[in-house]
């Protein structure tokens, strides 16, 4: 009821604000009032065209990775994806950030979720169930730019890569929890590449527009889908730093941050089919051992002494017993971040600014809104408690992921061949050429003995 009251007060104030008429508008006899222009853009957000192009790219990626086994085909596809999804669409329709829209759309009643966008987010996931992370390898502009920039890959040592590999899960769960309460979309905010895409888009368009008058025709609307504009601070220092890192560390964003990858990788593990290093039987020649810049090729497992097997079993039991503890601990730990994270919700942020006192635009806005600092803090407290609940769920899920990872480390499965780690492999096709069997298949060399 209290909220109803607040809304009533708000509406009353708003109506009053709309009805100020200190100077009655004149009745002109001859003068016609101009109309207020309301220009529309050529397109809104994700269109069915984008969905169709994405589907085509994903299909092509599957074809080139599994059937044709062609790295070149995959590179051409990813260049096309970079050109269209990156520079034509200015990077701002991407399934990576759109996870947050889905999260918000599922929990908040006042969030619009467009159908094409929904399909756009889920299509790569469905594809991952069939052919693995084909999206990452060929359709994602973020992946493409990282792949292109890779000049001299350095290995990330496993002791560092493994914990860093947990970051995407934490990022995904945190961003989803925050989006679910109506907070900022931090994935979009922290995207290091979108600025480059916008600036690139703008630059290309500016050049095209400068050249366009030659034809004496207006530019077609599909070309000016996003207006040419100076993008301030588009290529940020942080973004440039990430780009620089990309030259020596393969796909740092994909491996250590991308929240969409955190969904794709488990789906990829259970995929129906997946590309392989070798087209036929592995001959264990070890030539592909260092072929993968993201360490997604796993070597055969060694023969273990019986004593270590026993120890392994003991630790397996320990890990199994850890599940409830891990989930509970992580759920608790995650809730501890809620107060700090809550500031990323505008209403909480404003309430905190007002509560700190002093004059601020937030304080002025509060006076105009008819809300008191107390009411704002109250609302902030409610939002914060919602976030705490969401973070508890997110933390629990993170604990589960952590447990599965620990479990996977404790279960010692025998591997005789060089196989692909389906959770990490992005189907870039780099390793194909390292395999002698592949070269034999391509008739580049004779029969391997």
């Amino acid at each position, binding site marked *: 009821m209290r909220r109803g009251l607040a809304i009533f007060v708000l509406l009353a104030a*708003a109506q009053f604000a709309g009805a100020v008429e200190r100077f009655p508008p004149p009745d*002109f006899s001859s003068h016609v009032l101009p109309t207020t222009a*309301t220009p529309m853009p050529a397109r809104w957000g994700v269109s069915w065209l984008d969905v169709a192009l994405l589907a085509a790219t994903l299909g092509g990626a599957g074809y080139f990775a599994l059937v044709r086994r062609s790295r070149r085909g995959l590179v051409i596809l990813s260049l096309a994806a970079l050109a269209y999804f990156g520079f034509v669409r200015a990077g701002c329709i991407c399934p990576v950030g759109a996870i947050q829209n889905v999260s918000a759309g599922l929990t908040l009643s006042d969030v619009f979720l467009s159908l094409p966008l929904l399909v756009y987010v889920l299509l790569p996931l469905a594809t991952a169930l069939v052919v693995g992370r084909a999206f990452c390898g060929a359709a994602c502009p973020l992946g493409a730019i990282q792949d292109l920039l890779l000049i001299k890959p350095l290995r990330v040592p496993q002791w560092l890569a493994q914990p860093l590999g947990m970051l995407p899960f934490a990022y995904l769960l945190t961003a989803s929890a925050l989006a679910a309460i109506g907070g900022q979309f931090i994935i979009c905010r922290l995207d290091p590449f979108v600025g480059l895409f916008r600036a690139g888009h703008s630059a290309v368009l500016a050049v095209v527009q400068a050249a366009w008058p030659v034809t004496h025709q207006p530019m077609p609307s599909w070309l000016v889908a996003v207006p040419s504009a100076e993008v301030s601070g588009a290529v940020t220092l942080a973004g440039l730093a990430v780009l620089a890192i990309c030259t020596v560390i393969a796909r740092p964003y994909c491996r250590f941050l991308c929240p969409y990858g955190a969904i794709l990788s488990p789906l990829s593990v259970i995929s129906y089919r997946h590309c392989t290093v070798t087209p036929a039987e592995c001959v264990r020649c070890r030539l592909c051992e260092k072929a993968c810049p993201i360490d997604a090729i796993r070597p055969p497992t060694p023969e273990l002494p019986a004593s270590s097997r026993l120890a392994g079993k003991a630790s397996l039991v320990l890990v199994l017993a850890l599940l409830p503890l891990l989930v509970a601990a992580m759920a608790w730990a995650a809730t501890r971040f809620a107060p700090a994270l809550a500031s990323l919700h505008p209403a909480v942020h404003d309430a905190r600014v007002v509560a700190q006192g002093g004059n601020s635009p937030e304080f002025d806005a509060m006076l105009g809104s008819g809300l008191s600092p107390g009411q704002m803090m109250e609302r902030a407290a409610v939002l914060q408690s919602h976030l705490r609940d969401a973070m508890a769920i997110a933390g629990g899920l993170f604990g589960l992921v952590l447990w599965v990872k620990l479990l996977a480390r404790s279960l010692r499965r025998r591997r005789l061949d060089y196989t692909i780690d389906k959770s990490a492999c992005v189907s870039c096709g780099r390793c194909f050429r390292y395999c002698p069997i592949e070269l034999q298949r391509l008739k580049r060399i004779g029969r391997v003995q």
Partner: protein
Amino acid sequence: MNPSQDNQSQSDTDSASQKKELSRRDFLRSCLRGSAVVGIGGVIGVATARSSAAGSVWQIDPAKCTACGRCAEACILTPSAVKCVHAFAMCGYCKLCTGFFDNQPHKLNSGAENQLCPTGAIVRTFVEDPYYEYKIDEPLCIGCGLCVKGCSSFGNGSLFLQIRHDRCVNCNQCRIVDRCPSQAVRRIPAAQAYIIKGKEPKR
């Protein structure tokens, strides 16, 4: 040379056990895959019920906007996608327009010394005595909101800020949302992409 030839016998037994293990694992995988398909289907089902074919766009609610001027600098575009808009039907056509003239203008003409707008983006034209019409020259407008403040403080409030969709790139997360002190920027259906003052649907 095939390295596996060295211990042929062991490889045989290995592959047998491996096959058994593989089929078991395959079964597990297909179960998981099935549940993932069901899960994705579920998300589609639930979300479709709450989705629409048309998208949404960012817009400023003039009833909440306090014309603080932050959106001029917060937008990723320079100049900002936010510009001043005039609801002519609400305008009093004042001779002394407090959205056009600076505080205590020297004379009531459009000289730079009298204007409030820092970029001279408001065009003042004589209509009939004593009425003047004010139009926004949008390419010049930087969306600072000075005129909006002037008009709503002392006038009818017919000048207000709106996100212009011929400029807005419709970022998934609008940067202005983070900075807006009154939470006036929100997503609205693309079919009705502007909130024009005085034309608001009756509540």
